[in-house]
């Protein structure tokens, strides 16, 4: 079995963070989102992985993943160009996949439990495909699957007015090579894309068996800033306390705090886990880092109270202020305006930024 991670898209809902890089490299708990997908595939025994790239961010993703050897996998890059739909992305991988079955994984999704159980069940049956599902509270907003008692999919409906179930499609699919023939027969949808749900529905109508797997544990699409912060919170729930840095005896740490190499926590700093600090982070006196915060490499926290936030890295946060539910891009600095006249905030803010002062 092979793996296919879709890493195209413009990341428009994550601006301004994605003005300078692809959404798949935005960190959750200090690890780029796409790395979770790579690790899930590897843990399921899949090491031949195709990465489908669009026009945006493809150099950065290739620079990060390389040939895959650092992550224990072998990577082939597939250039889709314009985002012409998930089915178009899959079809671009036809030569890479050959006659194998393959997992298709959306590169901005994270799953708590991984893929192993879904892959094992698929391999024991005679299925043309398998789809991952999750119970949702608002099924009218999702693609919804109807399934029978054997978990075989009988129907897919996109954003139905009267949903037959609350089982929404989430970002993992398993396919046999039969999917390529189904895509050959597709026409673009009203939005000009080849829809993977149309391809799966075509398989159903042609009599193919489609298995389903209800995801155990949480699943997150990290398309928006609040999703990144939410996913960060969920991942940090499960971290272990480690210390590869230096903690002053008069610093106050409680809960699980994961401290990276070269990181220094000075006397008078207060940290309440779960918190992850990257490498070469400095936390100064009078700083408070509260639960569900991840601070990226080479950052300095010297003054603020910060909690439930993601700091990508190379930031200097020195203002005596409270920062809550923040997503701060690489190199973002927050300093004090105290003593400056005229009084007031001094902001250099990029396009599409959001501030609540």
């Amino acid at each position, binding site marked *: 079995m092979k793996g296919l991670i879709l890493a195209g898209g413009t990341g428009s809902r994550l601006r301004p963070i994605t003005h300078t890089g692809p959404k798949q490299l935005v960190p959750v708990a200090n690890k780029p989102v796409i790395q979770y997908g790579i690790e899930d595939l590897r843990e399921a025994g899949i090491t031949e992985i*195709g990465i489908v790239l669009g026009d945006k961010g493809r150099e950065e993703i*290739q620079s990060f993943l390389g040939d895959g050897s650092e992550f224990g996998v072998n990577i082939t*890059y597939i250039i*889709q*160009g314009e985002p*012409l739909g998930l089915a178009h992305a899959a079809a671009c991988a036809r030569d890479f996949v050959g006659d194998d079955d393959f997992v298709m994984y959306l590169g901005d999704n994270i799953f708590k439990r991984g893929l192993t159980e879904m892959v094992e069940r698929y391999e024991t049956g005679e299925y043309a495909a398998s789809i991952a599902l999750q119970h949702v509270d608002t099924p009218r907003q999702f693609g919804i699957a109807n399934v029978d008692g054997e978990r075989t999919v009988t129907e897919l409906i996109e954003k139905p007015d009267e949903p037959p179930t609350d089982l929404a499609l989430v970002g993992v699919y398993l396919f046999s090579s039969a999917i390529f023939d189904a895509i050959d027969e597709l*026409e*673009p949808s009203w939005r000009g894309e080849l829809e993977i749900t149309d391809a799966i529905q075509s398989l159903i109508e042609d009599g193919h068996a489609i298995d389903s797997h209800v995801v155990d544990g949480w699943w997150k699409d990290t398309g928006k800033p609040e999703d990144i912060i939410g996913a960060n919170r969920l991942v940090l729930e499960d971290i272990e306390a480690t210390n590869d840095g230096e903690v002053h005896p008069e610093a106050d740490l409680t809960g699980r705090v994961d401290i990276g190499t070269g990181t220094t926590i000075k006397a008078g700093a207060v940290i309440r886990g779960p918190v992850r600090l990257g490498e070469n982070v400095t936390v100064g006196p009078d700083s408070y880092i509260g639960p569900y915060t991840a601070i990226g490499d080479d950052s300095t926290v010297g003054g603020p109270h910060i909690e439930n936030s993601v700091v990508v890295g190379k930031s200097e946060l020195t203002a005596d202020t409270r920062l809550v539910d923040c997503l701060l891009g690489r190199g973002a600095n927050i300093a004090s305006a105290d003593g400056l006249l005229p009084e007031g905030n001094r902001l250099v803010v990029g396009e599409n930024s959001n501030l609540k002062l």
Partner: protein
Amino acid sequence: MRVETHTCPNCGTVVAANVLERDRRLRCPGLDCGEILDFTDLSEEVREHYETNRDRYRLE
């Protein structure tokens, strides 16, 4: 819908035919690969299909 690709003979990067049709001639997008890929690397029949159906492979 028909989807064709071309594989870089130097680094193995796969490039969709719609990218070749759009850019015509490009340096392989594979990192550090200097290979020049050209629309004419595709067969004449594939090129004709993509030129005839250009709008279907482009989002407005």
